[in-house]
């Protein structure tokens, strides 16, 4: 019985580790997006022409994967 429990616990641990790694990647992505947004709005460097396109892309990225500034619609360990 011990071997059986060990097998299932190891499987659970490996899957949880992968999901946790995905969550960490989400945080990295959120951080990069925040930096991108901050440098675009407060840097005092108005990038005429590119800015509209860029902000449109940022909006698209956020709507594709984000519900809030640093909160992503991706699975976390609590989802499983």
């Amino acid at each position, binding site marked *: *019985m011990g071997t059986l429990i060990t097998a299932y616990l190891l*499987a659970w641990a490996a899957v949880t580790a*992968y999901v946790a790694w995905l969550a960490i990647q989400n945080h990295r992505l959120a951080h990069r997006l925040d930096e991108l947004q901050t440098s675009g709005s407060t*840097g005092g460097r108005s*990038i005429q022409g590119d800015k509209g396109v*860029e902000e449109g892309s940022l909006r698209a990225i956020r709507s594709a994967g984000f519900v809030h500034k640093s909160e992503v619609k991706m*699975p976390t360990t609590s989802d499983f």
Partner: protein
Amino acid sequence: MAMAMVILCLLMAAILLIFFYAPTEATMGDVQRILYVHVSVAWCGLAGCLGMGTCGAIYLLRRRLEWDHWSQAAAEAGWLGATLTLVTGSLWAHEAWGVWWTWEPRLTAVLVLWLIFAGIFLVRAGIEDPHRRARIGAVLAMLAVADIPLVVMATRWFRGMHPVAPEMDQRMRLVLLVAVVSFTGFFAFLVRQRRCQLELFERTATLEVQRSWAVNREL
């Protein structure tokens, strides 16, 4: 979110069936229940490899990074499946054969698959240009698919100790089916989520490059 809940329910049902519905095997006892997760993750590992190779081939035909993202996501899920296959198989082997590892044909073929996955990740990590990375990754992924028949047929082509399609009780078959379906759903869900994440990373990287070009031009 609804899909995640459905998959979670399926997984819970599979675990309950494995522990409380499936009959105890006469020779090995409770340890035989490892089989349900072992076969499921092994199937997911092979499906991940097949998905990686197929998406790689489609990338080579269409040259769209979207397919490389699918390929990479499938590779990661496949690698997770192959890792769990080796771990659960090793625990099984210790109980059944008295050793943690033996150079048995099927075990060796799965280890080769695991090493191929790891090698592809290492090669990909060393290439910065996304299209070059995708191209080389796709070729390696298609080569990796060649290991699938070896894993599947190893017990028939070579003489080894690994069981070949053992006779099973009707209830055992049902539980195995539920386990395979639920694990496949879960791994497919992981692949889909990871694919979305990779696409967002790619788009963010493109925006960062555009931003730095625009700033340099202004300066």
